[in-house]
């Protein structure tokens, strides 16, 4: 371990809470996100335990509604959206592009404080009595009928939104301006393309969410508003505005995960990602087209049939670039020299689970089937396959991959693989039965349900318990590695990226000398040794 690194650059609280070092801010985010993940996950586990029986036995209906709302709100805005960008991205982006920090380090710190402030406000709303609107805040329920802390919770999300915007802004500017000499756009590792694209979405879509949330608060406070049908306002306008943000937001959530997968697949099959340019532009295409499909959440809401037609068509179109990525990843494996280290297990799981989630997304994009499936567990299963099976898995994969770089320690490979396999099985057991439930017509957000659905629910709940245990494992062995793990070399995976060409953990300003890039990413010699980008 090199002696001068960012971790021992200071030990005071001040040196952490007022740091502008992107690496330390990444750690701050990481700690906060674990916290929010466990809160959101605990709510989910309670939901699943409650649903093991058809009647209400553990919690009241009001409590149940608060649980799934809290689960959705916390885990979407305070875990999944910031997950990869703000922890791995924050840490790795400057390293990958050979810069000493992000473009605006102080903005980066501000973004964390805003995030924490938003989180605290939301937690306060939950502690004070909770909020029961669902993460979608549909009007007029949220504005005129709900008796819960809607305004406070919405304020929390609003603040967190600004944190996202600042992060997105920082990434865009950094990737534009701070690339090392020789690092042209087509030499960027694909992880960066996959962070750039969602950053654009963050910057362009989040403000629409912000203004929509403001309108909710106004309507709650004044008792009249844009979405109030009694004065000729339109509840569907809210849905349009909300999904104009929230559909692109799902790509904010998945694109960084796809980016991580590129790094993992390439490193562990010792080959360049197949079809670099196609994969790179696919990210951009997903981000751009993603703005044109929001109406697919409203096929049964009463929007015009023509609008539905267009949105359905666009939903299929936006799936094409995802298909391109999946096929390119598979092609990357061909004639590689594949090693099955823990990160690779996560990556393979990602491809499988994401594809299942994506394909079921096509079921939903298919108009006639969505009439039946919308607002049932089919949708719940669809998005958990993508968000948990896909994105959370990718997050874990990336975390394991860069862990040696971040902490300078190696974790136990045995336990890491065990956890990966356990998560995979727990996950499928939890969410596959939900497809069947949905196809049979069980509506979502149901606290009590007809007894004939019980069998699949029990399976799902059982899976959730396994999954919860499986998610606890990494916490244990990663924490263990921090203190007792072996010291990590600079480049434990023998990978070519710039981030691996500096010691682990990196020094305070990342590189002793400014690296100069001479190669495209992902280059390996015929005997599968990495060719560093800067050598």
């Amino acid at each position, binding site marked *: 371990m090199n002696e001068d690194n960012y971790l021992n650059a200071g030990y005071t609280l001040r040196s952490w809470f007022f740091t502008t070092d992107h690496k330390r801010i990444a750690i701050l985010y990481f700690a906060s996100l674990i916290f929010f993940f466990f809160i959101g996950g605990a709510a989910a586990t309670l939901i699943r335990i409650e649903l093991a029986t058809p009647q209400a036995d553990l919690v009241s209906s009001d409590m149940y509604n608060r649980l799934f709302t809290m689960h959705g709100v916390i885990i979407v805005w305070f875990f999944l959206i910031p997950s990869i960008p703000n922890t791995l991205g924050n840490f790795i982006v400057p390293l990958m592009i050979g810069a000493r920090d992000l473009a605006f380090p102080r903005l980066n710190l501000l973004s964390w404080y805003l995030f924490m402030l938003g989180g605290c406000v939301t937690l306060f709303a939950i502690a004070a009595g909770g909020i029961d609107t669902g993460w979608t805040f549909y009007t007029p329920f949220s504005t005129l009928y709900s008796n819960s802390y809607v305004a406070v919770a919405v304020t929390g999300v609003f603040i967190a939104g600004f944190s996202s915007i600042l992060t997105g802004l920082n990434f865009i500017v950094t990737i534009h301006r701070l690339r090392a000499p020789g690092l042209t756009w087509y030499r960027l590792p694909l992880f960066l393309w996959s962070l750039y694209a969602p950053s654009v979405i963050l910057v362009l879509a989040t403000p629409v969410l912000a203004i929509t949330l403001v309108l909710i608060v106004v309507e709650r406070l*004044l008792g009249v508003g*844009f979405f109030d049908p009694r004065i000729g306002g339109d509840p569907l306008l809210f849905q349009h*505005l909300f999904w104009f943000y929230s559909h692109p937001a799902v790509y904010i959530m998945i694109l960084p995960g796809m980016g991580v997968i590129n790094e993992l697949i390439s490193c562990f099959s010792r080959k360049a990602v197949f079809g670099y340019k196609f994969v790179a532009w696919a990210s951009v295409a997903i981000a751009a087209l993603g703005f044109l499909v929001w109406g697919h959440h409203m096929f049964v809401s009463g929007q015009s049939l023509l609008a539905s037609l267009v949105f359905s068509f666009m939903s299929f179109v936006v799936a094409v670039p995802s298909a391109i990525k999946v096929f390119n990843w598979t092609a990357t494996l061909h004639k590689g020299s594949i090693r099955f280290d823990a990160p690779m297990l996560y990556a393979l799981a990602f491809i499988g689970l994401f594809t299942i989630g994506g394909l079921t997304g096509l079921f939903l994009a298919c108009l006639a089937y969505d009439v039946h499936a919308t607002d049932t567990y089919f949708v719940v299963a669809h998005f958990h396959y993508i968000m948990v099976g896909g994105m959370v898995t990718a997050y874990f994969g990336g975390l394991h991959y860069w862990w040696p770089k971040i902490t300078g320690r190696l974790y136990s490979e045995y336990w890491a693989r065990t956890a990966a396999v356990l998560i995979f099985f727990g996950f499928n057991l939890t969410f596959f039965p939900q497809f069947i439930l949905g196809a049979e017509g069980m509506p979502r957000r149901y606290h009590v349900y007809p007894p004939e659905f019980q069998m699949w629910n029990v399976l799902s709940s059982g899976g959730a318990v396994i999954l919860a245990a499986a998610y606890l494992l990494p916490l244990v062995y990663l924490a263990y590695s921090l203190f007792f793990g072996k010291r990590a070399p600079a480049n434990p995976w023998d990978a070519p990226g710039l981030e691996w060409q500096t010691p682990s953990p990196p020094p305070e300003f990342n590189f002793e000398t400014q690296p100069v890039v001479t190669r495209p990413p992902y280059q390996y010699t015929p005997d599968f040794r990495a060719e560093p980008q800067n050598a």
Partner: protein
Amino acid sequence: MPNRPAFAPQYVSTRHRDETAELGMWVFIATEVLLFGGLILAYCVFRHTYPEAFAAASRRTEIAIGTANTAILLTSSFLVACAVDAFTEETRKICVALLAGAIALGLLFVLLKGVEYAGEYREHLVPGIDFSFDDKFANGAKLFFLFYFVATAIHALHMLIGISLLAVIARLTWRRAPTTRHRAALHSVALYWHFVDAVWIFLFALIYLPGRAS
């Protein structure tokens, strides 16, 4: 560190730093455009649905104040643009004076806005608090005034932020010899101020003009 370089370690040169900052401001403005864009979209939807009510409601707004405010804001933008030009060692005092002028105009704008709000309150035009309007158009007018208050309040908030930023720059320029760093900051703030100005022009057209054409 004993002799800190003039720019943070992630930049290559001061120029690099300043250009980076400017790009950052542009991206931020893109965000802001979408913020007002969502609101204006909602306005368009309802104006399309209730064209007459919107015209009637619009006629109740204070066009005199609105026009005065437009002139004030345009002038202040002009002053800021001049201040950017005058940002040199020799003309530093002028620059500060120009900024002070812009700040004063900005404050005047907010003040007039307050007067306008008070007038609307007296005329029972505040939805949800005290609203009464010709029955025929009451619903549409309510929506119009909702837009009016939300949009102008958010705009006024932007004004206040802009004023504070201008004040910070003016103070820095006053106290110390101008550095390129300050120039970059002034550039960014000026961009922001022009943006706030541009938003107002849109709001002006949407709020005061419908129903006044003939």
